[in-house]
């Protein structure tokens, strides 16, 4: 598992797409933190909102485009290996569960490091690291990474997961945020399986995102165990 996680982590840092994504996130974090006080002029903020204003840039970016970022880098993490048949080298050496978990932890570590650097940059201006917002953001990413892995196991064509990544990446935040606030009883139950609902509370309910991620990984693992490569 750790060997696969390490390889996934290193591979993510090697690609040009990853470098651009990380740079983009860092630049947005830096400038949004730098100009956060200018941005907030004329806007009435609560005490806690004012306290977390420096993180507004990275938070908005991850909230709205997080899935798109994760999908663009890792949409084909499993199905590419199946299509190219390199998966045969892995499954003849280690358990299928280790492959799924290794890939998950590798991608998580990449985003963890990226987010840590972003929050450290922000801390230059805010003079503190907002651990709560960091954990909230990380929980959202964990959910999205698990979803990406699940789709990559279910859908065998990498081109399809890329297409789906764009569609879901653009629609998921809008639908998810609408679901979190809608009173429509027919659809409002869906909010419990989207990550956004758990992010709008000022408590630790965001842990639910990690639980949902574990469930998705368990499903991905069961499907992958039955899959012939």
């Amino acid at each position, binding site marked *: 598992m750790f060997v696969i996680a390490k390889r996934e982590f290193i591979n993510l840092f090697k690609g040009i797409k990853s470098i651009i994504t990380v740079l983009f996130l860092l630049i947005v974090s830096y400038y949004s933190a730098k100009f956060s006080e200018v941005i907030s002029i004329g806007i009435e903020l609560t005490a806690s909102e004012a306290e977390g204003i420096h993180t507004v840039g990275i938070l908005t970016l991850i909230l709205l485009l997080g899935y798109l970022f994760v999908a663009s880098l890792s949409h084909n993490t499993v199905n590419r290996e199946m299509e*190219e*048949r390199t998966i045969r080298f892995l499954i*003849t*050496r*280690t*358990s299928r569960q280790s492959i799924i978990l290794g890939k998950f932890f590798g991608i998580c570590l990449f985003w963890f490091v990226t987010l840590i650097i972003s929050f450290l940059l922000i801390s230059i201006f805010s003079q503190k690291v907002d651990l709560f917002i960091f954990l909230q953001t990380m929980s959202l990413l964990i959910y999205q990474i698990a979803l990406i892995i699940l789709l990559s196991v279910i859908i065998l064509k990498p081109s399809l997961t890329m297409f789906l990544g764009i569609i879901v990446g653009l629609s998921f935040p809008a639908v998810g945020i609408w679901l979190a606030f809608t009173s429509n009883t027919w659809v409002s139950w869906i909010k419990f399986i989207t990550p956004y609902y758990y992010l709008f509370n000022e408590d630790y309910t965001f842990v639910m995102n990690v639980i949902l991620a574990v469930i998705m990984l368990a499903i991905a693992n069961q499907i992958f165990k039955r899959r012939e490569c």
Partner: protein
Amino acid sequence: MNVIETKQLSKSYGSAQIIKAIDLSVKEGELFGFLGRNGAGKSTFINMLTGIIYPSSGTYSLLGVKGPNDQVKKRMGVMPDYSTLYSSLTAMEHLKFLSALSGNSASKVRCKEVLNLVGLQNHGGKKVGKFSFGMKKKLGIAQAIIHDPKIIFLDEPTSGLDPESAITIQKLIQNLQKNGKTIFMTSHNLHEVEKICTQIAIMKDGQIIKIGTMDELRAFYRSKITVKIKHSPIPKAEQLTLYEWLESAGSDLTKEVNSLTITVDDEKKIAEMIRAFNQCKVDIFRVEVEEPSLEDIFLDE
């Protein structure tokens, strides 16, 4: 000890039965050759044993452990057919990554040693994306043996290799066997299997139709002994009698000038033939006896 054992192992896709209830035992230290035409089911069988695909029914065990089992994977090396390698990694990185995955991380020295064994000693730092088909094949074998496994599965190890490289790989496979490894290989190359394998199974339509050592297979096919006799001219008065006798003694009689070829089903008939020639006052200059080759056996099946 049986390193590989299958009981009624079958594989079906829908209504098509690809592997039909195969019972097979491979002993420790054997170099087992699995022969068959395209589509006979060789790769499907090897893929089941290595956990790439699952059997529809039946059971198998590797190293005494019922499969599929993740712990056994650490002690087996696999070179699957039709597999691509990671084009962004170098040969050396491949060996390091895949050996670490097997739980036996190879040192730089060990990687170099294995690359040397397969003839890739000068290409360790080269990205696999720039490798030729033959070089990829060699690296495929290298990754299968890098972690010093007990049992090695090789699916068509020398197909696509130039003759020199094929011989190098054949020698490597033989050396691995001499060092106590059990090797299970599939091949289209009859001469290769005949040359290096200690046990041979011939597969047809998802079933093993013949199994044994080369000598055992030959013994089974002794009915196909081809005898070529070079002789002095046969007196005209004796020709009819001798040819009639030969046709009754064997089959596929081919007559040429002062020579003939005939297929007999028993070695004793060769002695009878020589006596018959002597009785007809025909001198025999040369007798060539051809035992059935694996190619003959294979084609016959």
